[in-house]
């Protein structure tokens, strides 16, 4: 049949793309670091204000070698911060998706509840952090609760948008096949919403970490936020920056895990966001 030769889209050679992107990244990163170091030297900016890359690496090295583990070390700080962030993120993800599913089933329910949700969302939730310290103490609970609260809304709103984005033609199509409401949900609404859910999760991950750091600033006893404050009090700007490096490295790793999961689960919706790490 003549129509057999209709062309089908082929996927580009991916490994070459990845290698090229990695190469590009390394080059620009090297240029950025060199420029940073160069500017500081040429403009003679005080190391107390802005540390040079070499002094940041130095501070990082000192901290990791003089106190690799135990209280006050970067390792225990990172464990404390990310255990809370990931717990909050996980709770927020499950709760956000579940509430979105409930709201998507009933327009009435959505109309009643969404004003409250949006109203609460306009309150900067990190402003509640001091209250949580009073209510739940300066231990992990406060951090997890704040992280959950901050991460919940992006998951909820994105998932809700996803569940409501189901094309009406597809619903009608399944209805002509006699699909039940449950089948519509499992076969159509849920898989169709996954790209939206992942978009929400990506924001939520960043927010959860933000929530934990803020909680640690306000009244934590452990964690990377506490380490930042300690360096800050001793006017150790290079030390502050060295914690930033840890935050960026772990944050990027977690994000890549999430993006990897999205590419497996919502592989069919790729293309919009393939430039992201």
């Amino acid at each position, binding site marked *: 049949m003549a*129509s057999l030769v*209709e062309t*089908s889209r082929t996927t580009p050679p991916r490994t070459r793309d990845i290698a090229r992107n990695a190469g590009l990244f390394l080059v620009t990163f090297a240029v950025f670091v060199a420029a940073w170091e160069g500017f500081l030297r040429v403009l003679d900016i005080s190391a107390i204000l802005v540390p040079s890359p070499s002094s940041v690496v130095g501070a990082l090295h000192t901290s990791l070698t003089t106190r690799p583990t135990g209280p006050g070390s970067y390792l225990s700080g990172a464990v404390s911060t990310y255990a809370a962030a990931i717990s909050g993120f996980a709770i927020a993800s499950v709760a956000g998706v579940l509430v979105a599913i409930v709201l998507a089933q009933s327009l009435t329910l959505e109309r009643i509840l969404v004003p409250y949700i949006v109203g609460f969302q306009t309150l900067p939730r990190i402003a509640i952090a001091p209250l949580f310290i009073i209510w739940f103490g300066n231990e992990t609970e406060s951090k997890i609760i704040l992280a959950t609260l901050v991460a919940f809304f992006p998951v909820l709103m994105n998932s809700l948008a996803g569940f409501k984005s189901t094309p009406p033609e*597809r619903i009608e199509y399944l209805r002509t096949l006699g699909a039940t409401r449950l089948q519509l949900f499992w076969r*159509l609404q849920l898989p169709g919403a996954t790209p939206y859910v992942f978009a929400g999760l990506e924001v939520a991950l960043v927010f959860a970490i933000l929530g934990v750091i803020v909680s640690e600033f306000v009244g934590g006893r452990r964690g990377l936020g506490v380490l930042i404050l300690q360096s800050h009090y001793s006017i150790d700007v290079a030390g502050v920056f060295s914690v930033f490096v840890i935050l960026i490295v772990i944050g990027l790793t977690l994000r890549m895990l999430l993006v990897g999961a999205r590419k497996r689960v919502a592989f*069919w919706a790729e293309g919009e966001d393939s430039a992201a790490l």
Partner: protein
Amino acid sequence: MTDFADRPTAGTQTESPGGVPVVEFQGVSKTFTTRSGESIEALRDVDLSVQPGELLTIVGVSGCGKSTLLRLVAGLVQPTSGRLLYEGEERTGARDDLGVVFQESVLFPWRTVLDNALVPAVIKRARRAEVEPRVRQLLADVGLSGFEKKYPFELSGGMKQRTALVAALSTEPSVLLMDEPFGALDAMTREQMNVDLRRLWQERSNTIILITHDVAEAVFLGTRALVMTPRPGRIKADMEIDLGAERDISLLGTAEFATLTGKVRRELDMN
């Protein structure tokens, strides 16, 4: 909801050589009420009977109610007045023994070609082992063998509609409803799809109701063509298309074909 008390039910049944009509409209009207409270008369007093094995094409400009007609058959909407009979009987609710192909591909992007073609079987909770061999055969019949594991984003528009067609045929429906199935395709692909659909229909002798705004398509495919006029939608002309059973692409250039399409066009224009 329906009001047909004043309508004589006996005697309206058209006696036809094909036996009991697969689908029959008896004085069906449909009026929609929009959100702003305006009422729109989509169909007025439609009488129509579809015989088994017929390939009925319905042609009309957009907004003439032809999609409403199809949605009535599918049970997605109910008539405001009049009766709708399936094999001589009245039935209510959405119908699940029909195959449907819409203009926009309704393929699920997260399912492969094979899995998309199996969607009706999954929804009807049929056993995959029973349906899959038939679906694979159908895929081969429409030229999609070797594409079973591809995803919709890897297919051309024509291939997507072929997959949708296989899905619609997978449960061996009594009637196949097609709502401008090739409307989004380019002209050359559409001609090829028309030829293939004709061939499939001849091999399997399904009853097909196909809606189109393309006069040439309506004449080329149909054993019978209806012309509809808009607002309110009414059946203006009902023509047998005597172009023989064997139809291939060369038919499009013949004088007979031109005469028939000319006739349909005149019916479409005068309103």
